[in-house]
């Protein structure tokens, strides 16, 4: 009986750190994908790596499913609990083990919050590059599980590109150390395989991160266009010029409208789209590159080009951008965020198709996206009170994902498959390929106890709540914003 298992689990941790009361469990029922909810049997709150190892070994012995949880900000249902399983919450596993400025690395426990790494490193002029919009709250363990991105992926890559090594307890209870402190390694890249596993291999305990020197100068430009297409063409022109900007981001009219309403962002009036380009590097290099950027933008048909004159203006530009999603969320109580990727040259076509499909579905879609990476973030607004509101929105979301696959892209750029997109995996991968991934999963987790029901279409269907799709509770509270 599972309830007996919980009683035995209680013996592993000091009193109060295995919670099974309904009031406690309620807080862990959902993650950032609020349409789904499931009540776990219990929530374990380990404080040390050893405690995590003991709990996982216990789960293995008892065949008890578990879901690792960082801050629960997953947008794809990755940290949604498994019914009949436990949640292992890692927020207290949050020691920064060491910062080595000479080696430019940080060794941190998995529950450390993303932005705390940079906070600890900045006195050495270093920073941790991956910057998801949720960075003030999401954990390194969550970033590792999802290979999370941010606004600087074109130049700096995703989380995986900054993880040099890690220590983990696998779902078999085996404790492994992959990679190490060197930026080079020999032999198969076990670290690279582990990052992005979506919690299906086991639990990351301690992670070795590479730190980069903070760029000396930033040059941030905002250009307004009278059509989304022109903004897209400007991206292509920047790319073709040989510049390598740190960020290339686009917001469409609806997103702009929302940002103006929410944070009083100041954008060129009547712009149908805004492009943000940021150059960074030593001041002499930026001084040179900015002239080229200026020429390109001057020829791109922009209605207006604004250059941030100081750090405050730069922050204002980013504030509007980073708050755009949450702001759009406020225009509509219910929404779904998609995260598909298309080849960059097909961005214009993709956005046009999304617009057409949205009007067919009688739904509004706002677009805020990582244009440099071709990573779309269409935000589908609907009214959950209408009988078919959610169904229409989900149907549109599905069409957008299929379009991304057909265009040669991906169903997810950074939010992961989770429960949300698992049914689309067979459209992106063949049966052979999915079977291969399942065999790999079985090598790490033969009992399928680590985060079952995610990534692969099989398994019990996830439970939909009647609650709305919409803002993460922390967004409602104004603590975080999304992109």
């Amino acid at each position: 009986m599972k309830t007996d298992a919980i009683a035995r689990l209680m013996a592993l941790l000091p009193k109060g750190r295995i919670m099974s009361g309904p009031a406690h469990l309620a807080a862990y029922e959902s993650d950032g994908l609020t349409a789904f909810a499931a009540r776990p049997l219990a929530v374990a709150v380990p404080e040390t790596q050893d405690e995590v190892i003991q709990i996982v070994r216990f789960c293995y012995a008892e065949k008890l499913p578990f879901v690792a949880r960082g801050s629960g900000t997953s947008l794809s249902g990755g940290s949604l609990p498994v019914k009949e399983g436990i949640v292992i919450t890692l927020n207290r596993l949050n020691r920064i083990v060491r910062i080595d400025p000479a080696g430019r690395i940080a060794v941190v426990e998995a529950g450390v919050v993303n932005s705390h790494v940079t906070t600890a490193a900045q006195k050495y002029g270093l920073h941790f590059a991956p910057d998801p919009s949720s960075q003030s709250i999401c954990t390194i363990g969550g970033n590792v599980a999802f290979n999370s991105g941010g606004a600087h992926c074109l130049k700096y890559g995703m989380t995986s590109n900054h993880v040099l090594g890690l220590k983990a307890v696998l779902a078999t209870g085996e404790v492994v150390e992959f990679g190490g402190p060197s930026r080079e390694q020999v032999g198969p890249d076990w670290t690279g395989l582990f990052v992005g596993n979506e919690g299906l291999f086991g639990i990351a305990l301690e992670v070795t991160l590479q730190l980069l020197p903070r760029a000396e100068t930033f040059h941030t430009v905002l250009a307004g266009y009278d059509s989304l297409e022109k903004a897209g063409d400007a991206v292509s022109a920047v790319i073709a010029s040989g510049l390598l900007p740190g960020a290339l981001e686009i917001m469409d009219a609806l997103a702009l409208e929302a940002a103006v309403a929410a944070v009083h962002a100041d954008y060129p009036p009547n712009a149908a789209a805004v492009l943000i380009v940021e150059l960074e590097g030593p001041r002499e290099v930026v001084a040179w590159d900015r002239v080229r950027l200026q020429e390109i933008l001057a020829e791109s048909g922009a209605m207006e080009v604004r250059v941030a004159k100081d750090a405050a203006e730069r922050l204002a530009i980013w504030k509007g951008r980073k708050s755009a999603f949450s702001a759009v969320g406020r225009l509509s109580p219910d929404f779904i965020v998609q995260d598909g990727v298309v080849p960059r040259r097909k961005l214009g076509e993709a956005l046009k198709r999304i617009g057409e499909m949205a009007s067919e579905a009688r739904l509004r879609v706002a677009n805020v996206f990582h244009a440099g990476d071709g990573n779309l973030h269409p935000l589908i607004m609907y009214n959950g009170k209408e009988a078919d509101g959610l169904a229409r929105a989900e149907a549109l979301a599905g069409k957008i994902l299929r379009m991304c696959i057909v265009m040669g892209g991906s169903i997810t750029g950074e939010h992961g498959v989770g429960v949300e997109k698992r049914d689309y995996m067979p459209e992106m991968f063949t049966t052979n390929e999915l079977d291969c991934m399942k065999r790999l999963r079985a090598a790490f987790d033969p009992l399928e106890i680590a985060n079952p029901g995610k990534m692969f279409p099989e398994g019990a269907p996830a439970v939909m709540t009647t609650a709305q799709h919409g803002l993460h509770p922390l967004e409602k509270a104004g603590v975080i914003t999304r992109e």
Partner: protein
Amino acid sequence: MNTDKDMVVTTPEELAEAVQSAPRVLAVGAGTKPRLSAVASDVVKISTVKLSGIVEYEPSEFTFTALAGTPVKDIAAALAERGQYLPFDPLLVDAGATIGGTVAAGLGGPGRFRFGGLRDFIVGVRFVDGGGRLMRMGGKVVKNAAGFDLPKFFVGSLGRFGALAEVTFKVFPRAVTTRTLRLGAVDTAAMTTIFTEAAGQRWELDALEAWPAEGVVYARLAGPAAALDVLAAEIFSRWPGAALTDDEASRCWNGVREFAWAHDGGELVKVALVPGAVAGFLSWTQTMAGARTWVGLGGNVGFISLPRGGTLADGLAWPAMTLRGGGALWPGKRADAKVYRAVKAALDPQGRFPSIED
């Protein structure tokens, strides 16, 4: 490196057939890192040198896809025509290295210092598993988080978990100019100081390598010429040195890339280091007669060359891999885990490919 026994394939489908046609097989490229494919004689080699060609190259996407046996040289030339490059500086390019062999060996050069290594630029693979199934993992776009990241796992996996048929990479625009500065480092301590201090500066060095025997550090800057002159002057004001002429610089970097400093026909070993371990590593190498040493990536990698027939001294305390010569494949520190064998069994249940231990 081909022998009569070798099978030669020209398409991914033929590669899949070849993998199934013998009980023990190993895909090989041009043989520029011969130790990596020096396996038991009952293993049939599948030559990929005719599995060659760029399948897709879309400069506006910063991506290309090439068959595994494509010479890196051809790829570099195609990219250069469009002002792009592989930022991790693949090695042994003139020697004929193939892109698949480069991935399987997990080898990158000086450029890793700035933007990351080979693992950071590979985005997709097609490969044949031990069951002869031809599969695609990863994607063809610069950003993708769907499914497990097998493309990264294949980096450094030496063909022991699957035979690569095709690879997709992200590339970058190449900076308009570079400057190479030759800085003096009287001893190991001075060299380590340059490594650790230069890496954290505002200059954003493109490469930072050292040739300890001559007490020199090579620092490379990349960007607009006018800017580089200012940065170079600032660096020289800190550490005396001289800028190389363009000719000297290209000889220098070609030499690094092709291991021109290493012994002909000797042992060549790669060692994963950290800047703080460089001093210990160098004093260890000095215990071996005739050893030559290169230190790269600001102290994150070392290469040791020994004359033909030379053997490594005991006490290599860092992870290492022998590229050329007859020494142990993994002469350094090694980790082991049960899951290594479980993953091998998942991808190659019959053990068609040699073990990673071989």
